């Protein structure tokens, strides 16, 4: 089997689902489940499309890195679908297109092809977020997303004019061979970085996030904050570590922007009183951290930071968005005591938030400690200090939130979680705990990922 099926089948299924409207949720469910299963049967390889050899044609890179990304994204996508496919029947076709786009983003080894998939998944995302019933926010998202992808395209055009190639590995190679000064390519890369920054929720390119996630529902919350965020995380990781060349000054400037993004994100979450707002600002800070880690070149732990965030945010957004859908409010004070009668869901939520803070026996702790250790090993004291200080702030608002949601005596909010949500969040929470204690496989995997050379792999 070829990895291209992961893109083609969902796309084909999307067209079929138009013909069979009634069956469309089931098609979606089956296809998304199948793409998780199929991953186990595909061999790692680089796929050349249409028989054109790599620098001239488009290739898909199915290596260890994209395999992890595909596993996470497809699994979480399937879980989102499993929870929502009945309620959001009319979104089935669009969700299939989104799946195709996301898999394409993770697989492609071509910079222009990446742009295409950004557009595909972007359009799907605009339509999915239309279910928020907040058209203005969706429109803003549309505008912001388009501005972002245009900037990416402009940057890419400049690069193409300079080096005459669109293949990621070839581009990296050409830049290295030609010996161009890093400052000469700074402008196109900056444009592309900003373009991706819009999707990756980096401050100050992320004004759309608040409108989208603060009014998100059970479908859009997890899919934007967890599935899309993970995908973009993987894409940014690949580009930053293997393709982009930043001059030292530009790297420094971007680092400062990212640190500011982290600080601002935590401060904004700290000053929020609505559950969804707290979570969305927290995920802005996390996104900043992800990009920062990749910028420092730590591929392995960057990947697992993305994974930990995606799993955690999935639980957090699913639980809170279900409650706010039911209650029609997401003020923390209205949700007080939510978990008193929903202990299982509450425990999963607690595990996810403790992992996000980075407390021991949870996955977040392992990831955070290794990232900090790597940063220290590079002699970097400033970035860890910022990360730790912001972690304190993050911890405080999460702990406050948890205590409010767990402790209340009377007038408890009545929210029923159906069993599928319970299963999904509990299993994810258990996984977060298991890999927080049993760290050996993660550490081997992270070290392996650090050794992968994309430039060689992509040019096979």
């Amino acid at each position, binding site marked *: 089997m070829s990895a291209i099926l992961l893109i083609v089948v969902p796309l084909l299924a999307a067209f079929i689902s138009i013909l069979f409207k009634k069956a469309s949720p089931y098609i979606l469910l089956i296809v998304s489940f199948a793409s998780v299963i199929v991953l186990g049967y595909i061999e790692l390889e680089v796929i050349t499309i249409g028989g054109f050899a790599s620098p001239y044609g488009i290739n898909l890179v199915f290596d260890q890195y994209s395999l992890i990304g595909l596993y996470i994204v497809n699994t979480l996508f399937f879980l989102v679908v499993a929870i929502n496919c009945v309620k959001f029947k009319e979104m089935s076709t669009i969700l299939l297109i989104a799946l195709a786009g996301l898999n394409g983003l993770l697989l492609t080894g071509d910079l222009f092809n990446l742009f295409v998939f950004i557009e595909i998944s972007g359009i799907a995302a605009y339509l999915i977020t239309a279910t928020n019933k907040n058209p203005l*926010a969706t429109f*803003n998202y549309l*505008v*912001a997303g388009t*501005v972002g992808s245009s*900037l990416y395209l402009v940057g890419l055009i400049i690069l193409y004019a300079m080096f005459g190639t669109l293949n990621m590995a070839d581009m990296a190679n050409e830049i290295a061979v030609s010996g161009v000064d890093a*400052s000469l390519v700074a*402008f196109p890369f*900056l*444009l592309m970085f*900003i373009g991706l920054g819009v999707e990756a929720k980096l*401050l*100050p*390119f*992320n*004004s*759309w996030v*608040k*409108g989208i996630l603060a009014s998100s529902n059970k479908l859009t919350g997890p899919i934007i904050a967890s599935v899309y965020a993970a995908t973009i995380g993987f894409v940014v990781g690949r580009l930053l570590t293997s393709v982009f060349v930043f*001059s030292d*000054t*530009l790297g420094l400037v971007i680092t400062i*922007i990212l640190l500011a993004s982290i*600080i*601002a994100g935590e*401060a*904004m*979450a*700290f*000053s*929020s009183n609505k559950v969804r707002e707290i979570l969305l600002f927290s995920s802005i800070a996390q996104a900043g951290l992800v990009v920062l880690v990749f910028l420092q070149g730590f591929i392995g732990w960057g990947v697992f930071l993305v994974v930990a965030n995606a799993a955690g945010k999935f639980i957090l957004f699913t639980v809170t968005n279900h409650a706010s859908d039911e209650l029609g409010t997401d003020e923390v004070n209205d949700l007080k005591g939510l978990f*008193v009668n929903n202990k299982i869901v509450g425990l999963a939520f607690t595990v996810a938030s*403790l992992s996000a803070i980075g*407390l*021991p*026996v949870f996955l977040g*702790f392992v990831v955070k*400690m290794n990232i*900090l250790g790597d940063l*220290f*090993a590079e*002699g970097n*004291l400033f970035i*860890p*200090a910022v990360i*730790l200080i912001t*972690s*304190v*702030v993050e*911890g*405080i608002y999460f*702990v*406050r939130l948890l*205590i*409010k949601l*767990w*402790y209340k005596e009377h007038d408890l909010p009545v929210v029923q979680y159906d069993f599928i949500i319970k299963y999904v969040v509990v299993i994810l929470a258990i996984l977060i705990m298991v890999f927080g204690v*049993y*760290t*050996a496989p993660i550490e081997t995997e992270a070290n392996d990922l650090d050794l992968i050379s994309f430039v060689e792999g992509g040019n096979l």
Partner: protein
Amino acid sequence: MASIELIIVFTALAGVLSYFVGRLNKVAGSVVTILASMFVFVSVAYFGYNNELIHSTEFLPYVTFSVTYLGLFFAILVTFIFAMVSFFNPFFVEKYKYPALYSMLYLLSLAGVLGVFFTNNFMSLFFFFEFVVWTSLFLIPMGRSKRAASSYYAFSTVGSFALLFAIFIMREASGTFNIVSSMASVNGTEAAIVSALLAVAAFAKLGAFPLNVWLPRVLGNSPDAISAVFSGGLEKLGAFVAVLALVKLAPFGYVVDATGLAASQYVIAALGALTIVFGTLMAIRQDDAKKLLAYSSMSNGGYILVALTIASSASVSGGLYHVVAHALASTAAFLAIGAVSRITGTTKMSELGGMIHKMPVTYLVYLIAIISMAGIPPMGGFISKWLIFQAVIDKGMILVAVAVFFGSIGSFLYVFRPLAALFLGQELPQHREVSKEAPFFMLVPMVILSGLIIYTGVLPNFFLGFINNVLTEVGVTPLVIGSYTVTGTNGVLQPALIASVFGVGVLIAFIIFIVLKKSRKVGLMDTYTAGNFIYTEELMHYSLDFYAPLERLYEKYINITKDFYKRLENKVVDLGRLMKYYFFTNKPEIMVLWIIIIMGIILWGDIL
């Protein structure tokens, strides 16, 4: 023989077991905590004392253990406190919101504490440190305050992260996380930074000024048993780190020739002294007996810091002895107050009185505890304070000495107030019917603690002998002790002699009490003032505004630290709001503007 690893795993598993048992029967779950923590204490103390603890690991990945006298000293003490307090759990657990969870977290934090004291690896130390934070965190809101937990989290995480930062700096210097070798490898500026960061961790855990805000909140509002555990056990994690920071690492900064003390020692001693003074002044103000004891814990943390930073043999052994003495005394006092609150439902002194008539044993336990806290012979607190006083005066720290003495005298003022208001005095009508002595199993730990408080005061040599092992290990000259004498810098102390003289005095007083005529019991209303009859009994309660004239001197300044942190919090909130205002508008053109501005700035001139 017992393996440390197995003890820790056992404790954690017992915690999980207690959860499931607790789901079936609340009380049964908490009985598991008693059995497990008693077992842990006995095995740690017995095998530890006989040097039979095995430190190899087979199951836990990455964690390595070693037995040091320092770790053993703290481990025995803290497991003892956990074991004693656990006897209270069955009597309180039904009142809590999540009883099964309570039992589980109780044992999980015990497991974490053991890990902290026995590991020889800094990364595992941090792991267990944070583990203790979150397991104990969720115990706090089962009490009266929900806010206390987040402030506990905030301060102890600041401490933990300072610790982590220090750990990584040491790893860069030594290439290893091993505690002994990485601490040995730092020197010069690095050592100074590490020492300062570890001191921050110690301050945060001990609740010392300026990181003190959480301590009174947590101790004053936690469930009664948890207050005792925090005060006697978890707070002592700070003392453990303080030994690493202040005794094992050399002090730094300008050295004063006359005293041989470095600037860092002066700074820490000054902060310790401030902790003592603030704790004392705040304790004097409190109406709530638990809050009062909470502030007293804070001020005692100050003693430990002052003692450890001087790092002479008298001071360090005094500091460590104070750890023991305060752990025993404050646990006993918190338990006694807990026993009262279980029956009366309040810990406010103005709402209580005359409990001695119904709870004589609890009264005696509290009495013995506060005598020790005030540092009066023949209790343990006297020995430690005697050593600390000497060390401070000997080093010529006059101002610190004033603070230390002030704290001692201040503690006379405040610890006797609950005694007078809560146990003595008139019985209030609302508690007259319900009150009775605490059940037998609650009295057991209290009586054991009281016995130990007296023992540590009369025959301190056993514990001091053990502390001398610790001293040798951390590189301080051991204290000279005979079989019944303690030799300090300025003389020889004979605690047994003092105790017997004291005993004779008590005996004479007791004989007089027996022989003389009994006092007559009267009701609180059996009085009149200036010809008026009294209608509300509470107004006659003489603990209300007891030290009003003294309090008036400083009542304007009591909220300085609290306000500081409140303002800091508001600044963060302001920053967040500002960011939201500038970046998260509903207008995409603003975002485009930001992109243009950023590109403009970056592309300006030749900075790339």
